[in-house]
């Protein structure tokens, strides 16, 4: 099932606007002289799957990092579930990331010394979930993503697609409200990429999680409920697409 939300094309509504889970309002972020975001606006509804598109260097990752509370914007507001994320201190943002968000990056996000099961159980252990329960859930998620039998492997002993699915399992294992994925299939061949994308979208929908997905691949974007385009630090287009599948 999916909660399709049709946002207005005007500026977002009141702070606690119904249904909006994550919002960026007039977010400006520069790195030294380089302006990465120049007043970006984006609203994502609970349970929505949004694809963020745009050319390389346009500011997609920066926008994602601002939404996830990794970067503090120079100006503008970031809201999550009625909270001003950009006003939280680092400790609170860390906690927010740990408990409410899941992340999938392009590659290299697994801790090399840890086994697959360790890597997936890690966020739970960090959340002080008991060891037994943490590993049970890790094994469950690995199995659900078709990775049974790989629990003892190191990241170096996995294929690119397998590693991304482990990363996905790790993102999902905490039952996050929002999953942020930054070009999760960018390093995979198209067939593998499609499979990972399928699993990601399916799992997100099944768990009722919101998914913010950065990509510059139109085929990947096709999995999303909605597609926005970032160009030169601005979110250009709030495009309504049909529900995939």
């Amino acid at each position, binding site marked *: 099932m999916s909660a399709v939300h049709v946002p207005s094309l005007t500026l977002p509504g009141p702070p606690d606007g119904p249904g909006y889970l994550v919002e960026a309002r007039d977010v400006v972020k520069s790195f030294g002289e380089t302006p990465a975001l120049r007043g970006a606006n984006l609203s994502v509804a609970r349970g929505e799957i949004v694809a963020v598109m745009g050319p390389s260097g346009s500011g997609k990752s920066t926008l994602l990092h601002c939404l996830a509370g990794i970067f503090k914007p120079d100006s503008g507001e970031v809201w999550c579930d009625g909270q001003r994320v950009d006003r939280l201190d680092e400790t609170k943002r860390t906690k927010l990331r740990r408990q409410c968000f899941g992340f999938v990056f392009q590659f290299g996000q697994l801790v090399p010394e840890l086994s697959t099961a360790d890597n997936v159980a890690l966020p739970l252990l*960090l959340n002080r979930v008991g060891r037994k329960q943490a590993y049970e859930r890790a094994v469950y998620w690995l199995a659900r993503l078709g990775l049974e039998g790989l629990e003892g492997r190191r990241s170096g002993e996995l294929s690119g697609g397998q590693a991304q699915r482990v990363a996905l399992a790790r993102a999902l294992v905490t039952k996050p409200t929002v999953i942020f994925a930054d070009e999760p299939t960018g390093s995979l061949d198209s067939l593998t990429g499609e499979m990972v994308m399928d699993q990601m979208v399916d799992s997100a929908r099944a768990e009722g999680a919101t998914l913010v997905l950065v990509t510059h691949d139109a085929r990947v974007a096709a999995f999303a409920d909605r597609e926005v385009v970032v160009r030169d630090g601005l979110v250009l287009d709030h495009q309504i697409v049909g529900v995939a599948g």
Partner: protein
Amino acid sequence: MVRLGLQLTLRAGREAIVRLVLTAAAVAIGVTVLLAVFAGYHAFQATSGRACWECTQAAPARSPASHLELWNYSENIYQGRFIEEVDVAALGPDAPLLPGLTKLPGAGQFYASPALADLLKTVPRDELGQRFAGTEVGTIGYQALSGPTDLVAIVGYSPPKLAALPGTIKVDHISTTKDVQGTTGIYRLAFGIGAIIVLFPLLVLINTATRLAAARREERFAAMRLVGATPRQVNLIATVEAVVGALLGTLLGTGVFLAWRPVLASISFSGQRFFLQTLTPTALGYAVLIVGVPMAAAVASLWSLRRVRLSPLGVSRKVSPPAPTFWRLVPLLAGIPLFVVPLLGIRNSLNSNNPQISPLIFVGLFLIMAGLVMSGSWLTMQVARALGRTARGGSALLAARRLADSPKTAFRAVSGLVLAVFVGSLLAAIVPVFSYAESTLGGNAASLTNVMRAPYDAGPGLELPPARATTLVRELGAYKGVSVVPIYANPSFNAQLMFGPAPSSPTGSHHEPAEQGQSPGGYAQYDSIISCASLRQMPALGKCAPGVSAVYANANNDILTDNPLEIDMPVVTANNPAAPSNTAGLGVGTLLVKANSSATLEKARTLLTLFDATMPMSSAGGLTAWQMGQLEPETFGEMAEIRNNDVTNAETVALAVVGLTLLVAACSLAVTAGGSIVERKRPFTLLRLSGAPGRTLYRVILLESLLPLVTAALVAAATGVGVAIPLVKALPKLRNEPNLALPGPVYYVAMGVGLLVALAVISSTLPVLARVTQPDNARFE
């Protein structure tokens, strides 16, 4: 390609520069310490190897007259410091010259060592200067001295005057044998052990420093392979990088050492400062380091790359390196018997010239230390596996897996500290044995601290004659604040020594012991007679029974000992039998002289010195112990102090060695901990991005260092104490003290401090962790 390597090293951005600076700094610290150790060793060699002119012997009777010289060597003391004096008078034109002089002093002239010359300038003449006849005409060169603090005088006499002095001999050459002091052999042994102990962590530090952040470096090399560099070219570039860092470090370290050399020379090490001239690593030492360290760095760098297959697509996949096997315990298990077995045969007699010390124990020590380092990674892995099976939190899991995955890298960081623990434990078990000998005058003897003992006993019947003794006591008594207790020789005791055990009379002249009556009242079992009136001036010696005016006593053992522990006061109690009250006809074996201030004490000592020098040789036909250079007027306090100095020196050296090891180890730890953070920047940052609090990562870093440290340190401590046991048993027994003491509170405090140092060092890397993993700096897509 070398130029490309240089370019990459020096101009490849901040990270490369930081790595270069860190490498150079770590190497510089290592090189500074190494140079100091080399220099100290050289100075020690030069000093202990200097010609022993004091050992000069009488010439054979048939020596040509032109080469002859009169020679009279004696020792003296000023405020607890020994003064060596040699009186010389040339008999011919080719009379031998002492080292450190350009010409012999003429009659009425003397040369003084720099330290003595300084003293003579400030101390009143009647306290010191009068002891040397004549005027000072120059300074003795360092060739004749063991250090800048040595007090030496070379005094010129006219031949007839010197010939009349007791103890004068004719010599035809100055001895050039090496100055072998009783303790030199032990010091050499200690230096050998110390050198191994200090060198080892230095090697670890230099090795660590040149392999800093290997993983990051490897990524860069992979990129170069991608653009077409061959593996050989990559190796060459890696080598250039390592050599540049090491060379910079070596030069920097040499500079620091040169700047600090004068300071080093001013530090009293092993109780004695060294001359700046001798405190040098020598040209060879410099050369070995400047060539050797960069070469070692190149080898270490190539060695670290040997397992890495750098394919153009990146560093060959991280497959777990082979886990350390049980074989890593072998060197340790082999080293212990090698060290222990050669010592087992030796009981309380280990010394310099002991042919039983097999060089195997050095091999054994080396193996033990190498073995501790090698087995450490195996231990680390075992503990990490155990922790991994039970870890509850994220940080414990991360640390356990990392440790199990690369136990060698993890252990390398703490190996220096583990060695320091081994060394500290070894020394902690040995030092108490020496400390037992260390003691100041306690109890009753304490009041004897400023009492000087002037021994005049040159053998049975050869004491200071009564008439001369009376003069001396009167002259001493003329000083305000001086009191004198003569210890008379018991003629019966002497008679028994000379003619076998038979009771002899206490009366009669000591010059003709054979003619003395053999009265049963002679108390031949007592060596001395003491007047009760004089005893009252030094109550510590004891008190006679009421009404008695003189007593028989056994005093010599207690008052002539050179070990404060052997003093057993009082020597006189009410039980001592009364002796004839008239002591006027008795010879004096020892004079006890007490002064109320150190100035007065030195005045009295000056008087004793001059008195001795004018005592006609014919008086008793022999030489007193003092004249024979065996004992000089020395206070009980000085005797204890001289004893203590040896022990304190041993402790200082031990502390210096442990301190150095700790310093170097802490540097190693800082470098490795910092390096491992930089190396794992990516996974750590990602963990923080996904919500791992900074605290968790700190704990990971702490656990990764502390776990191997604590485990291996326990093993090291046990090994250190364990191998100390046979060493202690082999050491010369100083007295019937308990041979082995378990390390005391100082040891545990020191270990605690070491642990705190380690914690502090690791904590100092945490800001690096915070900065490196700052989400704001993150760039992952």
